[in-house]
């Protein structure tokens, strides 16, 4: 089952690999990213970041869709990680209701992005994606680590509008 989808632009790093994997008791980390499948430095780094006892699976977006849709993995507790909101929406669009929980965090600043949380920034398009995913019935929150305050979509929109 898909326990959660994390959107984090560093993909697998300390907070995700250690804190969130432990929090969700995930036994599979599925990295869904079109760059990772050809980038050996990323592959080495993620391999090193994977905690003992956890299976690391690195796939393109379509490769990840195939994993998520494969009923064979139903007994596994899978944490999916994408780099962007757009990639998250792509996965959700091709996997029916498999992804129910989306956890945002670690979204670095960039052109046209506004601050939402201490270390997270979103663009207008990111917000539009979030709204669509929310309307499709998915639960979306923003939280950097398991002990930090969790923001709801409502609070995310409020912070986005406030910092415009």
């Amino acid at each position, binding site marked *: 089952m898909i326990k959660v989808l994390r959107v984090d632009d560093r993909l697998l790093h300390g907070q995700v690999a250690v*804190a969130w994997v432990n929090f969700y008791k995930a036994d599979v980390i599925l990295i869904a990213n079109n760059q990772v499948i050809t980038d050996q430095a990323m592959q*080495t780094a993620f391999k090193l970041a994977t905690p003992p006892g956890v*299976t690391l699976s*690195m796939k*393109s977006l*379509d490769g990840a869709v195939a*994993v998520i849709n*494969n009923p064979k993995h139903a007994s596994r507790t899978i944490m999916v990680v994408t780099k962007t909101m757009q990639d998250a929406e792509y996965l959700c669009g091709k996997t029916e209701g498999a992804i129910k929980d989306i956890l945002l965090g670690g979204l670095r600043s960039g052109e046209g992005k506004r601050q939402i949380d201490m270390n997270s920034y979103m663009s207008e398009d990111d917000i539009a994606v979030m709204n669509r995913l929310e309307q499709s019935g998915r639960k979306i929150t923003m939280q950097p680590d*398991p002990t930090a305050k969790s923001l709801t979509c409502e609070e995310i929109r409020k912070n986005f509008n406030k910092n415009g």
Partner: protein
Amino acid sequence: MKNIILLTHGEFSKGIAQSCRFILGDVPNLTALSITLDESVAQTKAMIEDAWKTFDNSAPTILITDIPGGSTTQSAIGILAEHPDFYLISGLCLGLLLPLAMLELTDDREENLAAIRTVLEEARDTLVLVNDVEAADALQDEEGEL
């Protein structure tokens, strides 16, 4: 519920406690102690004792020192006489501290010792010459396998 006391030469303990919280967020009952050149073993023991008193004393306590062959560990060994129930570990690094901070301990000492041994075994594997690590095998992408 458990207590963790870090004891190191100089400020390492405070830095690594900050790094630990950077990754895990709030870590309750974690305290960082430093020894300087001026402290005697007796003073260091008193410092550990004082730190421990600020905690919930019914919870298990893990005391972690930086290197086995140092006065940090000498002082810590001394305190085992009064606190034989402490779990004393030497060889502090972040790859060890993170899993210990997340470890759930019970009131069964044998069970706790076994759990800590497992964490130590896995922490040894976090010492890595990264140059020797090979990239993942050719990735099978489209088949729906992990």
